[in-house]
């Protein structure tokens, strides 16, 4: 049933009794043309675009838990394409363009809120870097604007723009089209649309082994039995190393925990996304009213989906340093997600060195905004057994070749990105 104001009104009269399942829950078939591991946004989007763009609809998405329960369901929902390096800029801008039309494409409101993403700058060196990045964006055809301290102060009245602040706000780089997207809706919207195209979404189905025969993918061993497939896409975010190891592949990836937190809901108080690299902090206000906040990693390998107090203290301290009037709001919930941190901070969307095996992963802090493009390009790579020009730079081999895509210049220290 198509979703619309009309169908909603009609169903209201019928007691909302006829809404069908958003996605079926079929038992897995014995074999598929392609299998995607991971029912997060990336895996579901991969399946959707395989069916939609490439006509490959005999596809299964295998999710060990419930769809969207990984980082898709626990991220701070920021989408943007304000990258400096060309490969990243083109990729994320492609993604942002897909976001702009996604609700309609999926017939599921993912609430892409183009409320702007503002990166504050606090030192002359910050300004230089922000200008370099903003100029690169503009030359790449991406919207960007440098805002002065005065403009920012007028726009965000709760932000402490006084020159005496510990990290004084000297200006900021704004991407007006950046913003937020409702995280859960992305998983559900892709699932529903993929399902409608015939994709099987199999929850509670953990991939426990990858069968390789004669150097090529034969299928996967799962908690629900063996499933044969000649093409296997891995989209498991924080678990990339674990799953790739099933095919004997070691990745330049470490898993780390990143925490996020929300305050109690309040009436609108912050209308844009504000981030600060110097104080390692980002915040936006959800439509429900909570401040959604995050900061740095916990800086040690972890698969625990929970972090520790020092980072929470730091995030809240940073929040209050920038927004001193939020001091009496209360923190309502904190949680963590497992980040697949690569050695250059950029993703890997590529063929792996086993025939028929592909991956999209290595998302670090920033893969939510990549979801549509990652799915699109991963699907393309699977369908054509070759990358699309947009993901051609994001290979696994780039490290050995010296073609790192190191946006921060932080080097081969996974947790430093």
């Amino acid at each position: 049933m198509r979703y619309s104001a009309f169908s909603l009104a009609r169903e209201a009269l019928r007691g909302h009794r006829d809404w069908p399942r958003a996605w079926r829950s079929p038992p897995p078939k014995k074999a598929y043309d392609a299998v995607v591991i991971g029912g997060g946004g990336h895996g579901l989007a991969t399946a959707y675009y395989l069916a939609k763009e490439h006509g490959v609809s005999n596809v299964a998405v295998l999710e060990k838990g419930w769809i969207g329960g990984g980082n898709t369901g626990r991220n701070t929902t920021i989408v943007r394409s304000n990258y400096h390096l060309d490969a990243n800029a083109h990729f994320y801008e492609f993604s942002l363009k897909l976001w702009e039309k996604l609700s309609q494409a999926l017939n599921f409101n993912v609430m892409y809120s183009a409320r702007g993403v503002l990166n504050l700058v606090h030192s002359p060196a910050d300004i230089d870097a922000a200008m370099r990045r903003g100029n690169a964006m503009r030359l790449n055809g991406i919207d960007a604007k440098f805002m002065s301290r005065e403009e920012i102060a007028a726009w965000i009245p709760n932000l402490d723009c006084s020159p005496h602040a510990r990290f004084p706000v000297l200006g900021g780089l704004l991407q007006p089209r950046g913003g937020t997207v409702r995280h859960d809706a992305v998983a559900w919207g892709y699932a529903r649309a993929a399902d409608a195209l015939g994709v099987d979404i199999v929850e509670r189905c953990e991939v426990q082994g990858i069968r390789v025969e004669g150097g090529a993918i034969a299928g996967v061993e799962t908690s629900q039995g063996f499933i044969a497939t000649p093409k296997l896409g891995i989209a498991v975010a924080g678990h990339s190393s674990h799953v790739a190891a099933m095919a004997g592949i070691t990745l330049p990836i470490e898993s780390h925990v990143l925490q996020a937190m929300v305050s109690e809901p309040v009436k609108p108080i912050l209308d844009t996304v504000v981030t600060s690299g110097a104080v390692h902090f980002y915040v936006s206000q959800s439509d429900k009213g909570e401040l959604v906040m995050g900061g740095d990693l916990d800086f040690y390998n972890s698969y625990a989906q929970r972090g520790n107090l020092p980072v929470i203290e730091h995030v809240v301290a940073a929040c209050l340093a920038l927004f001193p009037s939020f001091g009496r709001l209360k923190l309502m919930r904190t949680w963590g997600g497992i980040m697949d941190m690569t050695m250059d901070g950029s993703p890997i969307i590529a063929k792996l060195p086993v025939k028929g095996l592909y991956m999209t992963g290595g998302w670090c802090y920033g893969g939510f905004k990549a979801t549509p493009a990652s799915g699109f390009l991963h699907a393309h790579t699977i369908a054509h057994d070759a990358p699309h020009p947009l993901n051609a730079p994001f290979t696994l081999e780039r490290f050995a070749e010296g073609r790192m895509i190191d946006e921060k210049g932080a080097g081969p220290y996974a947790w430093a990105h």
Partner: protein
Amino acid sequence: MQKFRLATGGDIDRGHPVRFEFNGAPLEGYRGDTLASALLAHGRHLVGRSFKYHRPRGIFSAGAEEPSALVQIARGARTEPNARATVVEVHDGLVARSQNCWPSVRFDLGAINNVVSRLIPAGFYYKTFMWPPTPAAWLRYEHWIRRAAGMGRSATSADPDRYDQRFAHCDVLVVGGGVAGLAAARAAAGGGARVIVCDETPRWGGLARRGASSVPIDGAPRGDWIDTCVDDLAGAADVTMLSRSTAFGYYDGNLVGAVERVTHHLAAPLPPFAPRERLWLIRAKAVVLASGAHERGIAYPDNDRPGTMLLSAARTYVERFGVRPGTCAVVFANHDGAYDDALALRDAGIEIAAVVDPRDDAAMAGVDVRRARDAGLPVHARSLVLRAHGGHRVHAVDVAAREGGKSQRIDCDLVCVAGGWSPAVHLFSQARGTLRYDEAIAAFVPDASPLPIVAAGAANGCFDDALLAADGTAAGEAALALARGASPSPAAVARPPRAPGAAPVEPLWTVPAPYGAKRFVDLQNDVTVDDVALAKREGYQSVEHLKRYTTLGMGTDQGKTSNVPGLALMAAELGTTIPAVGTTTFRPPYTPVTMGAFPGAHTGPHVEPVRRSAMHAWHASQGARFVNAGLWKRPHSYPRTGESEDDAARREAINVRRNVGVVDVSTLGKIELQGRDAAAFLNRVYINRFDSLAVGRCRYGVMLRDDGMVMDDGTTSRLADTHFLVTTTTVNAVRVMQHFEYLLQVAWPTLEVYATSVTEQWSAAAISGPRARDVVAALVDLDVSNAAFPFLAVGACRVRTADGEVPGRLFRMSYSGELAYELHVPTVHGLAAWEGIIAAGAPFGLMPYGTEAMSTLRIEKGHVVVGAEADGRTTADDLGLGKLVNAGKWCVGKPLLGRPALVADDRWQLVGLTAQHGAVMPRGGKLVADPDRAPPIPMQGHITSWCESPHVGAWIGLALLAGGRARHGETLWAVSPLADQRVRVTVGPPAFIDPEGTRLRG
């Protein structure tokens, strides 16, 4: 007039009336009241409006689990949204307001949402607002949705209050000061443990503190037992008692975070130096979780009408606060435990119009049921409350037999629901404890944790008053054993002790209802039974999907009274069991924690510490503008009256080239190395050689990361045969020290090298300019002639200062390209030496200069900066330093330098740029061949540093340019679309001044 206040009873102090304000009306309560109890004393139930439908809402509980009675406290900068009226202690001057309503809580326009509620079931927003199909359209919808959502309001000016932090350590931490917790604490303390016991309320004793229950503890009346126990604990040397302190989270290493509300309950003026709250970080060897249990409701139509509350809460209001929450009550309960509470209400003069119990008579076998019947309470067995009537206050309910038939309307002004209890297992679950579904109480109880945590009392599923103290004692003893090193085992967790024959709870989560009737499960987020059914129908069946699709349990109460009913309803929909559906994850904080409490004093100007050089005060006194460099504050420039910062920097730079300037370089990282293998170590760390460096000489060096990229640069001096001084960049000092330590301890432990950071030990000033020698000669006791002290010489010296002669180290090195010296003195003498330099330099026109002039000078000279030119993606060769990479030796980073892309011809390489025709070089400009192309416009490089060069008389810059070293002489465009600038620039070598280095050698 406190019309509903009882004449006697309760823990309130009738001798101490307090005056507060609610929705503008002045009201009176007593010391000891919560806002909720004081409002109820006036017969006020209507407190606020619900989140989504803006329905009138009252007071549902008497504690931290409150979903409904949320209010806005105080005004102005001290205003606090979403305060739970049930835990706010009244005091003189307290101001509270209903929130999420406009214009008033009685008449709220937002209640239109209730009228159209059929259109907006769970998740409706995912299905609509997609037309017109533009991002701008959603932004407009969102604008209104956001305004309707949210709850209270944030303050808009800075929180004026202070927050403290405290680390604490103990053997046993007891969370919860009810009977079970007190017994546990006493047992642990009795065994010699260091004990901390905390309770979030102001009073010890928990639920047992209410009234005089008939069940004695250890033979004593409950109140007496509690008082004695509290006295014992308070008197014990190794026991710390924290009241008004909520343990909110259980973290790794058995660290429990707790927040103490220090002044919330006090009237102004507050004790002047007391923090508002204190964050306790309690490292416990073992934890007893005695956090009690939360009673839950039953979902029947309009079960949210003000005047509806948990039965135990009604009793708490009567017995703890001496308030009658109504005059005539209907009790809707599904277990025997409720009858004692019902009797207590009746004893307080509340008429019990009915006790409605869904169970068969046969199941209602408990003594209290019999007592109630004997006392004449009208008990309706096998019956249900089918709906409530009323708007701002309930005035009747419909009751009918379970199997159907005609319903009977029973008038009442209070409905007390008792749907069973859910143990407060939050911290147990956070401690990786597993939960077990206990059929007998229809709730999840602690099962086993790999960590040293033991549950006790109601938190452990022990609901029997007669067994509580024993359960607590057992838990205290078990925790003591854990603290002494026993390993956690499932056996250590006491099973919920239960008296034989105790009647099980009969689970009842909802009652039948017609379409459209609202049976609320989650009162705060307006989640109804129909919403759960809808979620099921649409496939959002996993408990986590249910939560996220309906927002069940996502409010400020985090579903304390609603989670179990919600998942039970889903289980019923799916035809499966409750444990098969499972719970959602219990995350910290247990109850919301004031954000201000987390950083304590470390916020605002103290969010990060500030490093100040010894000369900081001098710079400030000279009007320096400071910039952040790492944690340091460095002078950017010293503007004179009427002078802009840029003008000042230009003047300072010119003065260095013409006369002489001095800059504070104390912030540079400094590491001293000693030991037999120090030179060998440096050879391995830097791309260039240091074993060939003579004593008394220094050399510039570059070090690489393991991946071959430039990590840092600086100078190294040989002070003695086995003694070196390494300088690093300001920002990388800590990192380089750690890198050295790693290499020395982990990679090359056989090298005999000792390292220590001396950044703090030495204050440093760079004196540069053609007249630098004159200044230095006047200061130090060395012969500084070119012959005696040539370029790159190093020597110990005595420095003349106003303090007398102080020891120093003199270095002949130059960053500016001029004749220059660096003078280091011990930091105690830093200021004196600086003032000495200023005085000695006066005759020669010396001026201090800041980082901005320093930057201009080094750009003119073509010196790279780590962070700008060396941006973490550049090799030494990219920066034109490839010749330093010594072919004859190995160094860190060298093995991977040969990767194909690192030796490609089109790598971005360092060049100098000059803007043509006097144009201003664009900040952060990009280098392109054709700026008029349609985007994306290919970029060939970018400007890394730039300045208006007084020396060149034009804007110049350093840049990284594809294949740049081979392109000197080319003309390109430098563009900044952000600043709407485009400039023609000429590519050249990076050094704009004295490329041969005659000045600095002169």
